[in-house]
């Protein structure tokens, strides 16, 4: 995202430089001549385009964040711990039957969100 923003900034700087060179060039040409005006007009368009590109770059596209909700399962007797995606109906301290490691009761120890940027 940052590289995109930098690209936009670089292009707009180059366009401003181009406009500056054109304005400089026009100062060497007779100011009442039509060529001078055309050069000035092109310079102006370059300036406007550079502003447009710069502001477009400032409009940051928000990264899509998907919800990755984890349910942590633990056992009342042993140190068994398991993580799995959240299933509707899960809640903290919900008993889930017997533990996979021992005969103790497993329960939901925590439910939390781990954001994943896309």
């Amino acid at each position, binding site marked *: 995202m940052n590289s995109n923003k930098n690209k936009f900034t670089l292009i707009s700087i180059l366009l401003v430089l181009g406009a500056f060179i054109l304005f400089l060039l026009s100062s060497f040409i007779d*100011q009442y001549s039509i060529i001078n*005006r055309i050069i000035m007009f092109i310079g102006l368009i370059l300036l406007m385009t550079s502003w447009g590109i710069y502001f477009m770059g400032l409009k940051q596209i928000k990264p899509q964040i998907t*919800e990755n909700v984890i349910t942590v399962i633990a056992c009342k007797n042993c140190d068994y711990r398991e993580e799995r995606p959240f299933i*509707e109906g*899960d*809640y*903290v*301290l919900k008993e889930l039957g017997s533990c996979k490691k021992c005969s103790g009761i497993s329960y939901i120890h925590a*439910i939390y969100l781990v*954001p994943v940027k896309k």
Partner: protein
Amino acid sequence: MIINQLFPSGNDIPSTLINLVWLILFFSIILFFNQRIQIWMYQRNAEKATMKLQLLAEKSKEETLKNIQNFALENIDIKSQITSFLEFFTIEPVDKDPFGVLNRLEHILDSRRERIKLFISQIAPKAGKVEAANIEDIMEAAIALNFIFKIVRHFLLLGKKTKSLMIFIQLDMQLPLIMKIAEAYYKALKTFSSGKPIGDGLGPLVASRLMFGSPKQVIAEDIVCSEVNIENRKVYVIKAEGPGGVVGKPGEAVKRLVESFEGKVARIFMIDAASKLEGETTGEVVEGVGAAIGDPGPEKYKIEEVATKYKIPLDAIICKMDIEEALTTMKKEIAEAADLIVNKIKKAIIERTKEGDIVIVAGIGNTIGIAQ
């Protein structure tokens, strides 16, 4: 050629006149249309925000409808009932005479809660206790979103009607915060409908960790209490009764507990989620003193009053998070902070009380997705 005619550069009178016309036109625009241009710009921003808010309000209504439909009777039209209930309002008590204002506020809040519960029981009779509590939270979020949309639209239309730049400037300046709150409510609504724990559930999560495996009993409206022994101290842990989305009356519970021991309580610890300042880290745990509870007033007042009456020190432990984090699915940092707070409380109880003392630990917050 056209450019030459429009912007003549000669020294003759017609060229000078045309240039003068351009100059007058330019200054006229600046002088007479300056404010109009500004109004147009602010109005455009406000219109965009209002459209977004309208979309959020409509989506929240649909989401509410979708959730309630699962527990509604088939032959009842719930759409019109929900639409009209979204306009539900609460009038705050008069505070010109502040005497007893918190009792009156509590009464009004109780009435509000009772009306919402009654409405839910009528439109979603198949919903159990947990589902009904979650629907209550969904309704509250939808009502809030509808209210925000209507307020912003009101000021937009008022600004258009009066062509007042001041109204537009004030609206535009507040829009970033308003949008942030509205988006947080919308995301909260989605979390409530799936029954996941929210950031504000940190207090109940800490309490549930402390009371894990001990018998519980209901001691106040939607509040459970459990007696735990920590290093020979009698610790009474209270939290809202989950896993439905309720907050309960922790103030009433603390008051009843203290009164039942005739004030012989060594310390009251309160754990709550607190709004963080920009630059602060989510999940940061900070200690302080005072009643850590973000209710409209009555519950906090009860705790402060009873603590003052019996000179019981009030310790507060808070976990920092922003409004969106408090209302949406609990982040990993916040869940991890709960374990840290449990250790801090145990340490504080040992350091600040002596053996045989009675201590109260209150986990404040919405207990959605957290049982006991």
